[in-house]
């Protein structure tokens, strides 16, 4: 029996993992488009001297979308780090809200512009990042999940981290405890093979972070993080396991960091020209676009529409954020402690 292209597409469609509809996939792609336009804009704002610093999610979009799709934002919890721009959009944060972080404007939702972008706590989703200190979120995530287990709640905690964080002692301690107490946490590693300039082979003597799961008695799986469906499937399995009392998992998403570490970095100092050229082929946007078109989920008109929409959204958001003033100076003295009586914030 010979297969025509449309047969293949149908077959692929039929094999979508449970919970992942064509509509959700299309929506995810739309968010990816938005994320990319926003990401480029932020970089531009930095070059214009308006945004002090930014870490880009370019290259990580499919990984983050696949992950968020596999969770339930109404009850799950997300401990992020600085690179989860796409995840935040997928969780309903608006482009204006994102830009106000980078521009440190009054009303910034996560930390009132006290912190770097993507740090603080979200007012609508249980998403947070207390600090910029790499790896600290891992034991914290275990504690968050432990509290849910203690209270008998069916929330699952997603702890995002990078390959760099995997070298920290905190990573070992967190996974070990999670393994012992079977807490409902998913350790979600976006492995882009670099901690700033340090390549994977100088970070660890093994190829796979997921393989370390066996040290902690938890399942570990390595997935192509440019494949949104494969990511969804792996994370979904881990989330379901956690939710049903099966404890922790480690999911490693292999991605490429398409840009330098942050706007302060210049990766030509430490990456070869060939490598930089090669990773362009790992861009999850064209990969996802092609996949969706092959499957008949996306047509060119819709694609154009998405991209146009994303540009408008980001333009509007930029205007709105730039029109917003910085926070009142006096606000900085508040909320050190619940009660600042006793001289704690006396200048």
């Amino acid at each position, binding site marked *: 029996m010979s297969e025509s292209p449309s047969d293949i597409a149908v077959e692929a469609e039929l094999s979508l993992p449970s919970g992942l509809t064509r509509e959700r996939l299309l929506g995810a792609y739309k968010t990816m488009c938005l994320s990319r336009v926003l990401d480029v804009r932020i970089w531009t704002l930095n070059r214009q001297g308006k945004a002090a610093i930014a870490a880009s999610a370019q290259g990580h979009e499919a990984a983050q979308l696949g992950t968020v799709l596999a969770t339930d934002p109404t009850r799950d*919890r997300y401990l992020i780090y600085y690179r989860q721009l796409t995840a935040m959009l997928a969780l309903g944060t608006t482009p204006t809200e994102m830009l106000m972080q980078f521009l440190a404007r009054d009303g910034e939702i*996560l*930390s*009132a512009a*006290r*912190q770097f972008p993507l*740090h*603080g*706590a*979200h*007012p609508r989703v249980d998403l*947070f990042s*207390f*600090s910029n*200190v790499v790896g*600290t979120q*891992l*034991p*914290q*995530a*275990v*504690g*968050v*999940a*432990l*509290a*849910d287990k*203690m*209270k008998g709640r069916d929330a699952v905690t997603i702890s995002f981290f990078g390959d760099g964080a995997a070298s920290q*002692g*905190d990573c070992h*301690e*967190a996974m*070990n*405890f999670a393994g*012992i107490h079977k807490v409902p946490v998913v350790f979600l590693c976006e492995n882009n093979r670099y901690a700033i300039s340090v390549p994977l082979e100088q970070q660890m003597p093994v190829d796979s972070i997921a393989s370390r799961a066996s040290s902690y008695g938890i399942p570990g799986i390595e997935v192509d993080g440019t494949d949104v469906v494969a990511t969804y499937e792996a994370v979904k399995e881990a989330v379901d396991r956690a939710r049903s009392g099966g404890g922790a998992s480690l999911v490693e998403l292999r991605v490429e960091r398409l840009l330098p570490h942050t706007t302060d970095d210049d990766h030509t100092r430490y990456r070869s020209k060939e490598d930089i050229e090669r990773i362009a082929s790992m861009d999850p946007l064209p990969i996802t676009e092609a996949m969706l078109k092959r499957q008949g989920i996306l047509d060119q008109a819709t694609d154009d529409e998405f991209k146009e929409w994303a540009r408008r959204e980001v333009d509007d958001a930029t205007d709105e954020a730039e029109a917003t003033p910085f926070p009142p100076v006096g606000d900085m003295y*508040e*909320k*050190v*402690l*619940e009660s600042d*009586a*006793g*001289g*704690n*914030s006396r200048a």
Partner: protein
Amino acid sequence: MREATLVPEMTLIESVRETLRMEMRRDPDIFMLGEDIGPRGGVFLASEGFVDEFGEGRIMNTPLAESSIIGIALGAAVNGMRPVAEIQFADFVWPAINQLVGEAARVRYGTNGGKFAPMTVRVPYGGGVRGGLYHSQSIEVLFAHTPGLQVIAPATPWDARGLLRSAIRSNDPTVFLEHKRTYRLVRGEAPDREYTEPIGKADVKRAGSDVTLVTYGLMLHYSLQAAEMVSQSDGIETEVVDLRTLRPIDGETILDSVSQTGRAMIVQEDTGAVSVSSEVAAIIASEGFFDLDAPVNRVTAPEIPPMPFSPLQEAEYMPSPEKIAASIRRLAEV
């Protein structure tokens, strides 16, 4: 706060255990975690018998990994629990500093109040127990310096109970320092009810008009002894101010006392450079300067790592009642 109905005398460690038990009974969100706190009851027996009463779910033995003890406590705290973590000895708090000083202390501020961390970290500290360099340390400096933390160091069972209760009920991270030498040495009574003592308030433990002596922890007891010695031998009356809280430091009570006596000294077990004693001296030098009749005097440990295992050297290291008394006399004579 001092009242008629008192429970019988108990040791400081008993008062800690009793308070933990009462708070655990009162609030199901409180749980304890730490090394050996389960069937062993903690190395100082602060949780003796707890695992039988509250179960392994609320009295969690942890792996030997202090950073995760605090990191996990922090995560649980921001998600509705009220953890009480035990660091087995203060000397082992260093691996946990990142989670405590770097993270927990800034959660409320860094999220603009979106999250907060009602957690208590109990830390047995201090020397005079033949603990050598790694079971004797005073580790209060960094905590007392850090905005976003509360730091408590009670010296009596009364204060330990009232302040531990305040710490556990507080919605901010609190480091609760228990001096190991006081655990069994110090006995005292306390009100027979669920009282609290206020965080951030010093307490005048002895009234006196000649010299103000500011101290905390074990040194309170040595200072009170010294105050009696110089009172009897020289008629010098020392006002002894027990800081009780090291962050925030209660400048008001200190300055009130200095305004009466005109002479101030600080006694601490920790080494002197860049320490709590420095801050008390600085507060007096800047805000109480015109009340002062004499230089501010400090009695501290020498600038060597705390503290030798050898018994004679250990004794030499610690400020003694005799050394404190000699300092009071010198200060009164200036």
